[in-house]
């Protein structure tokens, strides 16, 4: 099929308008998903209710994919999965490691009659040179925006008021066309009519005769955000971004600090009533980042926020675990709740040795995610992370704690079959052929 891929993320109004024209909205299953994606009431339901809802969606979803793609119909048959009776264990059978979505591989997972207007998101390339890529139709982007906005507001603790406040994303604007996390923030804030500033510029440079693009801070924009009296102020950044800002403030001597306060009114940066720092995207290649808790505690010295009543509160920190391949994210709020998925998203953990579903709290397992809101492909995948869960009183019944990335060694490092000689030469070579 020919995809009509836009090079730029369209405005949210255009996405909603295009989504409304999708032929899939005539399909009762997709129509139901559309309605559920905007349903705030889901966050008040019980874990049991939501579990049952997700099971029902899974079964309808598998039926939908089998009807719209011979690839999925044959796959379900080979795996001996009957959509009518599908269970969580079947998701474990269907889940694909994200490595299988690198390059152009996403195309093989697409159904044959999908909405062809959309955008392809890519991973940042932190863990591999060939990025993971995933196609999103306008209908999916619209559902993504609705669902993620609701999840964000649940974790944030209240609704973002339309047209109030100011946001800064420490990223370049161009990245919203490729990076899922940036796009989701951009679209959600557009939906809320909250102005979003981008604090980085993508600059072309020449080095060693090659053209490169690098990110440089846009000091004027950052200062505009810092000095603004709008509230709430929402700062979106990778953990490294807020860490580096904190270090810059730390590095100012007393005189510089005083001068800066006189001229710009910082530090500290007043995020105002409802102000929050939202991190996401992991370490982004910074190997020497301190633990997240340390980043938060250090940053709170220079970034201040107030509650709705105007009194100073420890600056709220939210962290988003969202991969390119996940339509809705998992979000936590530091000191308040661990990572929690959207009510419709099925998050499961697999035993790293047996690949059976883990049902015990505290046991580390390989993260699996199934998102029924994705309708262009069956979005069930293993991103390669280890997590554990704790039981929770909230709607999901569980909250998740990130443990680490999986280490992908080959095993038997010294053993190379008949080629078992000069082993050291073999070490460190990739096993992908």
């Amino acid at each position, binding site marked *: 099929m020919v995809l009509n891929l836009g090079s730029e993320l369209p405005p949210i109004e255009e996405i909603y308008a295009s989504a409304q024209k999708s032929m899939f909205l005539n399909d009762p299953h997709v129509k139901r998903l559309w309605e559920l994606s905007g349903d705030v009431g889901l966050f008040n339901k019980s874990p049991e209710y939501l579990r049952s809802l997700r099971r029902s969606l899974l079964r309808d979803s598998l039926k939908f994919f089998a009807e719209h793609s011979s690839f999925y119909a044959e796959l379900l048959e*080979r795996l001996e999965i009957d959509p009518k009776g599908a269970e969580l264990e079947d998701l474990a059978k269907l889940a694909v490691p994200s490595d299988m979505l690198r390059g152009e*591989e996403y195309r093989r997972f697409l159904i044959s009659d999908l909405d062809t207007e959309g955008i392809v998101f890519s991973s940042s390339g932190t863990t591999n040179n060939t990025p993971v890529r995933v196609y999103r139709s306008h209908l999916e982007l619209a559902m993504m925006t609705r669902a993620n906005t609701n999840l964000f507001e649940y974790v944030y603790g209240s609704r973002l008021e339309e047209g109030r406040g100011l946001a800064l994303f420490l990223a370049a604007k161009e990245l919203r066309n490729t990076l899922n996390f940036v796009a989701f923030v951009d679209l959600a804030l557009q939906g809320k009519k909250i102005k979003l500033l981008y604090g980085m510029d993508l600059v072309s440079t020449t080095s060693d005769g090659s053209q490169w693009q690098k990110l440089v801070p846009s000091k004027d924009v950052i200062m505009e955000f810092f000095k603004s009296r709008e509230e709430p102020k929402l700062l979106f950044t990778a953990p490294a971004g807020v860490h580096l800002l904190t270090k810059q403030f730390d590095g100012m001597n007393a005189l510089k600090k005083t001068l800066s306060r006189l001229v710009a009114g910082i530090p500290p940066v007043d995020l105002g009533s409802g102000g929050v720092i939202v991190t996401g995207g992991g370490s982004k290649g910074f190997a020497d980042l301190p633990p997240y808790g340390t980043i938060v505690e250090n940053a709170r010295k220079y970034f201040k926020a107030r509650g709705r009543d105007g009194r100073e509160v420890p600056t709220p920190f939210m962290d988003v675990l969202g991969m390119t391949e996940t339509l809705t994210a998992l979000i936590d709020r530091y000191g308040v709740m661990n990572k929690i998925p959207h009510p419709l998203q099925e998050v499961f953990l697999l035993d790293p040795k047996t690949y059976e579903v883990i049902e015990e709290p505290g046991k580390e397992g390989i993260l699996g995610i199934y998102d029924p809101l994705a309708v262009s492909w069956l979005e069930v995948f293993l991103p390669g992370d280890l997590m554990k869960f704790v039981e929770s009183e909230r709607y999901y019944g569980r909250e998740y704690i990130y443990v680490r990335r999986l280490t992908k060694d080959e095993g038997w490092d010294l053993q190379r079959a*008949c080629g*078992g000689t000069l082993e050291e030469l073999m070490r460190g070579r990739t096993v992908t052929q």
Partner: protein
Amino acid sequence: MSLEPLHSGAGGLTSTSVEGQVSYLEPTAEWFSKYLSNAEKTQEGLRGLGFRRRVKVVAELGKIWMERLESGALEGLMTELVRNTGYSSAMVYNDLRFAGEVLKESNVESLIDSGLVGGWRSLEEFVEVAPGEFVANLPAGPALIIASGNSIVPPLIPAVTALVTSNVTILRPSLTNYRVVREVFKPLEDLARDIEDARILGEALTITYLSHNSKVLEYLLKEAPIRIVNYWGGEPGRSVIARSVVENPHKPRLYVNGPLTGVAVVDGASADSRLADALAREVVTYDQQLCSSPTVACLIGDYGRAVELAKEVSKYLDSYGSIHRIEVSEGWMFSLTTLRKALELNGAKVIRSSSPENPYTIVVSKGKSSFTGLNLVPLNIHSRRRFLEIIAVPTIDECVKLIKELPKTPGYAGIDGVQTVALSLADSRSKVEYLRKLSMAGVHRIVPLGESYLRTPYEPYDGEYIPRYFTRTLYFRERLAGINAST
């Protein structure tokens, strides 16, 4: 890990400590230079013992080895080998037992006898091979053997062959089995004190670890008066060795035993429970790490039959695999999971074990390998364990084509070709046709299914008789009675 060289010669050995990824002691280049300057004399001394006396010393090592194995004295080494190879304890025990077999007098004699024109006697004298025509086989060394780590048998066979054909022998085992191989020959130190034949044989043998970037290894390959280099392994080591050997002014002959694999060839009618049993045993034996181990089974018949066979093999794998339990890392398991999924999405039927101690996988494919067209192969053929692809093909011709193309098939890259065909036919009348066609497939051995790993002393290795690596054949003609000699 402490890796020390072994040399029981009278002059001892001068070594230096090497620190790096692996810390070990290696003989100095100066020591090798001096040692090799006496090589001709050492080889003459060895030759002077006569074949039977040389073999007796080797056989004595074998007896000592078996006694130590049976007394439990090798438990520590077995544990180390289990850790290094990933094999089950039972498999490692068998490997050590096979080592004893290699050293047996009768087996060594058969190995040499079948490998040399003129038999073992040609090592002692000219043997008449035609009226008035004679050959004698002389040591062609000194020899450097860079051996593999998948079993201790492959390092022992060339080392023993080189010694009993009177060569100064430098053996560099793999890091995986270094200490075990060294331990096999270690009793030479004690025997050499009392037995002159052992002293002479010990003088001819040096075992040492040498890392790939060792200056001493570089010296041996590029400068030393070495005449034979026998390298067991694949890339990138093979190219490094070949480039170095070319530079050596003494022009050593390079013999490479590259990585190979096995293919089971089965006609549909023979695909019964007994065959499934044999195939499962082949998969568990050495976890398919031998060059003979079947990693593919070519079933001449329909796809349904192949699926049935896979299910049957899976039952036996459940049973054998639970006896031979192995330990896998979470990273390896994730790569295996990725590979299984990739094959499934590529259209294969995948039957898997959920036991991490017996993580077998059987892939059933139709007409061609399911690896075809796969961009992502997270476990290459050397890293896969208990992983069998059964491919249903309509004819033996298709099977031959598949065997020929295997090294170029994604997922099988890294092998030079197919060494062993493990054959099972229900109708013996088709044997002649199958053998004729398979002989065109470039394979080196055709053996009954279930016996791939079994090797008799009469067999060539990868199409070559190993004694020929280590000897040069001298031809002598007395007369050409009544024949017009061609020029």
